[in-house]
């Protein structure tokens, strides 16, 4: 469970994020939308303790994330290429992250199997360093790594960006299936309204760092979002 209270991040002259109260339940699939500069990535970075909040705090499972290493065991994340190690091959990278989570060989094998469809034969056994991968494949590696260690919470920034249509559909299936099997909550930001409403049961519109609208359920979500972004 992620709970945010009185969270504020001020930069010189403007407030990037200003959220009074927001709670994401352990089973929720949570979507975050908003135009550029709305504060989506800043919020995610604060949740992952990469940016120090000016005020307020974020708790994951009841504990403040700041200066705390515990949550890293059960939160998986991929925001951008700063989460990848460019001079490793994808396999080495997965092995390394796997070891941090105590993975054995079998665990890694099961992991590869899960992502076989998404990887589409382009990631494993190619003898390429991560730095030489295409943008779409970088994204696949990052997203896959965020699933290592069976985290309870997975934070993804723009997961569908740069993926080809087939991969987008496969990723959506993967996200759905994973959540059917265990208690898992997603925090996903996206500019693609169709995708986000398909994957998420709850969508929050962020505007200038503030929660503009909190839409529950996915039936009318797309229409509501389109209405907002038209303006």
């Amino acid at each position, binding site marked *: 469970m992620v709970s945010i209270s009185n969270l504020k991040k001020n930069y010189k002259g403007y407030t990037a994020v200003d959220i009074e109260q927001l709670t994401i339940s352990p089973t929720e699939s949570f979507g975050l939308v908003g135009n550029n500069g709305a504060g989506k990535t800043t919020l995610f970075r604060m949740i*992952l303790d990469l940016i120090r909040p000016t005020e307020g705090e974020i708790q994951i499972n009841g504990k403040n994330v700041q200066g705390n290493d515990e949550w890293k065991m059960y*939160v998986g994340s991929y925001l951008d*290429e*700063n989460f*990848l190690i460019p001079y*490793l091959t994808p396999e*080495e990278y997965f092995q390394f992250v796997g070891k941090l989570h105590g993975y054995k060989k079998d665990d890694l094998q099961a992991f590869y199997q899960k992502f076989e469809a998404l990887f589409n034969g382009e990631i494993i056994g190619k003898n390429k*360093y991560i*730095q030489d991968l295409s943008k779409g494949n970088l994204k696949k590696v990052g997203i896959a790594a965020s699933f290592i260690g069976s985290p309870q919470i997975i934070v993804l920034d723009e997961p569908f960006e740069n993926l080809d249509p087939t991969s987008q559909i496969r990723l959506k299936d993967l996200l759905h299936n994973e959540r059917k099997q265990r208690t898992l909550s997603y925090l996903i930001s996206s500019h693609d309204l169709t995708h986000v409403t398909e994957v998420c049961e709850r969508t929050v519109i962020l505007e200038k760092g503030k929660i503009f609208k909190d839409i529950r359920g996915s039936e009318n979500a797309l229409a509501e979002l389109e209405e907002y972004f038209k303006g």
Partner: protein
Amino acid sequence: MVTTVLLGLFVVIMAGYAIALGYAIVPIITKTLSEDDPINFLNGFLLYYFVVEFVLRYFMQNLPVLDIQPYLHLPVKRNYLVHFFLGKSVVHFLNIIVFFLFTPFALKVVANMYGFAIAINWLVAIWFFSLVTHFLVVLFKKKLDDTFLGLLIIVGLFSFLGAADYFGWFKLSEVSRKLFSITTKSYYPLAVGLLLLATTYWLNFRFFLSSMYPEEIGTQKRSDSRASYGFSFLQNFGVVGELVNLEVKLILRNKRPRTLLLLSIFLLLYGLMFYRGSTKEKIPDVLLFGIGIFMTGAFSINYGQFLFSWQGGHFDFTNTRPFSMRHYLESKYWLLSAVIFICFLLTIPYVYFGWRILIVNGAMMLFNMGVNVYIIMNIGMWDPQKINLSKGSAFNWEGVGAAQWLMALPLVLSPFVIYLPFSLSGYPNAGIFSLAMVGLAGIILHPYLLNRTAKRLLDKKYTIAAGFRKD
């Protein structure tokens, strides 16, 4: 912006040194060494000078190959592009440095003896050879850099010259003297130099014309080093071992840290230059200390300058994965300490020049491990800049901030803070002993000191992460 200014400043300083040196050469040779034939004397050194220039160019010169990329798809003739690129490569400080260095000598000494025309002849001939070196380096860097053959050629050449000198086949200085003394008698060397220059230019031209693809001439080939480097025994040391292994891979797989590693091995030979005279006269302790610090700490200082910058590209990874900052720092601590220890082991043969050298180097190793490592870590936290690992090493100013310039000072000066009070009161050996003890204390206290440092890093990580995210 700042780096441009620094770079400009650096060039100005270099030029200043070169001019000063150029003026100093004249009185040094004629007065201090009181050579009766200064021209012959200097000529004997010129081939050595070109060897040094080759090495200097190798490390400092970057090929502007990527500059042609924007024109490749435009209707411009390929020949023209290659000429443009090669011409552009000539515009470099190092290509006129011979004028700074040798003009005073040419005008004051050579002109005095043989007349103005010969002086110009002499100077221009040297310049031509300098340019030949330039084109040789360009070709060498593109064709043989980072290959086994390239290393073999360099090592082979140096061994051959050394052997020739040793077995008395010929002396390089003798060859150099004869070669350049021709310039004082005729204008042929000018023609020969021009011919050599044209040949090397032509070789470069042919090479680049046949490989006009950015991926071929641009960044280094990546087909090699696919093999899994790293040390599997490190897996027995848990998370910290894994992190050290990761960093070993970083060093071996990326060009810039790899060059640093080679450079550090090279620095281990430093002692040879200074210790050699020690059989005749005693070397001052100050010098022994400096050499000891540099040899045992060469890699740690060179690499540690950018301690956090190397992994700046994935600092967010470091922050979100399940290990603590303490683990992260500890891995850096063990890596640096291990390398310092290995460097010390490699300097042990210098015991040939006296036991004192071994003892001082041992004390310096302890001091590096117990004190300097923490200095490196703490200064490294001060506004580190990200290093883009895929870029080459030569004259790459990425990652260089104010802290990196300041770091070398405390590292080299700190041992004297402890040593001087003892030595001034007449107990230099006690000074060395207490240096070793302070180092040992730092090593024993490492769990505590690492905790302290980790706390600082934890506090600063947001600023550091924000800095790394900037491009």
